């Protein structure tokens, strides 16, 4: 357990409390000067400050109105009624290029077959990560190269809200939703199962999983900290059918680019093959998910992309 509880930054670095207070202008002159001096030489803290600032901006966009918040109901944040997991895909050109690369890669020889033994720990996660229609990490990398420019941020939120009133009320735990989105994260050689609120890094590869009680048409969209929306799945123009599964995996991985900040990922599980580009466009224009089409169940995840550091980096 103790290995799971470790500080994120060195003892010399600034705490989240100091950084929050700095963003809010609450530091004394002396504290502010000391913080500024540290931030000038510590990349880790500077990146963390940017991430906290991005989170603050994102909250202002999607937080429920105060009156609704305190009126006895918990309302889902604006634009989060579809629990969307947004995968940043970006420009149509990027998607088309990615599709082309995927086509080329699929015809090529696999350098690493699905299910091959992977060294090190997390073998089940490795197999889950590598599984999927014979696609290999090489394929994922080819896809990533085509999509990387359009991948900004990745957000993974856990609320699992269905279509209908975007209202949650206190009380007994909600029934398990009929469809859920999951993610595996490959960072270097390590693969782990991800969850909301987790930090990811540029260069990390995401492989999505899902659970559904029956076959549905599925799409995955993302909204990054720069408010760029992308379609991670499918590569076609409409949501693609997937079979029911307890732990299904999507065929390809996504490599995260260098843009930092909160990333929101939305998964749509629909009765029909809905068009995805209008949703992506609405997501980008509004900075928040639109109301999901009728017949869709939405799940979402939120990750925080931060710079990869090996201890406190110094400029």
């Amino acid at each position, binding site marked *: 357990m103790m290995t799971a509880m470790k500080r994120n930054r060195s003892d010399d670095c600034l705490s989240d409390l100091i950084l929050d207070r700095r963003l809010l202008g609450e530091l004394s002159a002396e504290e502010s000067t000391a913080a500024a001096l540290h931030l000038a030489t510590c990349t880790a803290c500077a990146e963390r400050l940017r991430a906290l600032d991005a*989170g603050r901006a994102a909250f202002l966009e999607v*937080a429920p109105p105060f009156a609704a918040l305190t009126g006895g109901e918990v309302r889902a944040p604006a634009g989060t009624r579809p629990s969307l997991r947004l995968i940043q895909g970006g420009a149509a050109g990027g998607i088309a290029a990615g599709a082309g690369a995927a086509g080329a890669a699929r015809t090529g020889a696999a350098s690493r077959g699905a299910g091959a033994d992977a060294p090190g*720990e997390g*073998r089940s996660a490795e197999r889950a990560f590598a599984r999927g229609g014979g696609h290999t990490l090489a394929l994922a990398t080819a896809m990533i190269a085509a999509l990387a420019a359009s991948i900004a941020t990745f957000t993974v939120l856990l*609320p699992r809200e269905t279509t209908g009133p975007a209202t949650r009320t206190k009380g007994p735990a909600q029934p398990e939703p009929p469809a859920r989105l999951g993610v595996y994260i490959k960072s270097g050689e390590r693969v782990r199962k991800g969850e909301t609120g987790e930090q990811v890094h540029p260069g990390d590869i995401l492989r999505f999983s899902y659970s559904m009680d029956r076959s549905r048409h599925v799409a995955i969209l993302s909204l990054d900290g720069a408010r760029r929306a992308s379609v991670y799945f499918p590569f076609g123009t409409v949501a693609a059918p997937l079979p029911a599964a307890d732990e299904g995996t999507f065929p390809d991985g996504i490599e995260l680019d260098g843009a930092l900040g909160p990333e929101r990922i939305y998964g749509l599980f629909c009765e029909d093959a809905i068009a995805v580009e209008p949703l992506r466009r609405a997501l980008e224009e509004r900075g928040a998910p639109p109301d999901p089409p009728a017949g869709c169940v939405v799940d979402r995840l939120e990750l925080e992309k931060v710079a990869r550091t090996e201890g406190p980096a110094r400029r």
Partner: protein
Amino acid sequence: MIPAEVAQLELEQIYRRHGHLVLRRARQILGSDQEAHEALQEIFTSLLHRPEQFEGRSQITTWLYSATTHLCLNRLRNHSTRTRILTEKVAPVDASASVESNAEARAHVRQILSRVPEELARVAVYYYLDDLSHREIAELVGCSRRHVGDLLVRFHEAAREVERGR
């Protein structure tokens, strides 16, 4: 202190300026976006109806750090939440193989936090989740830096006992 007659207007401003850090920390501690939003609602609704809770002896940010930690640790102790953690599935493809999972590790951490005394759990939250220094923790909880060190030692001991199933 927030005068009751202007509480709502000022509180709404506080909500917009500070709500992000309440939500962020609640997510970190609870590991659930839905529960984090419920915690956000609970804190600000409570402040709206009982503004005297914030006595102005510290900055509102510091007070919200403390209030969020207290509320979230209580929620971890809630039976239904604990049940969720204990029955949470982290589905390995192969049941005989181990899955390196931060999600599993964090669920285990939350079990620990829900079962050690709150005095110890909150210090652990500040130290490991917020990266606060001993000095900052001492100011937040109102004790000496040496006592913070003692509390962390006691937290580790209590955590080991929980893991041993005592």
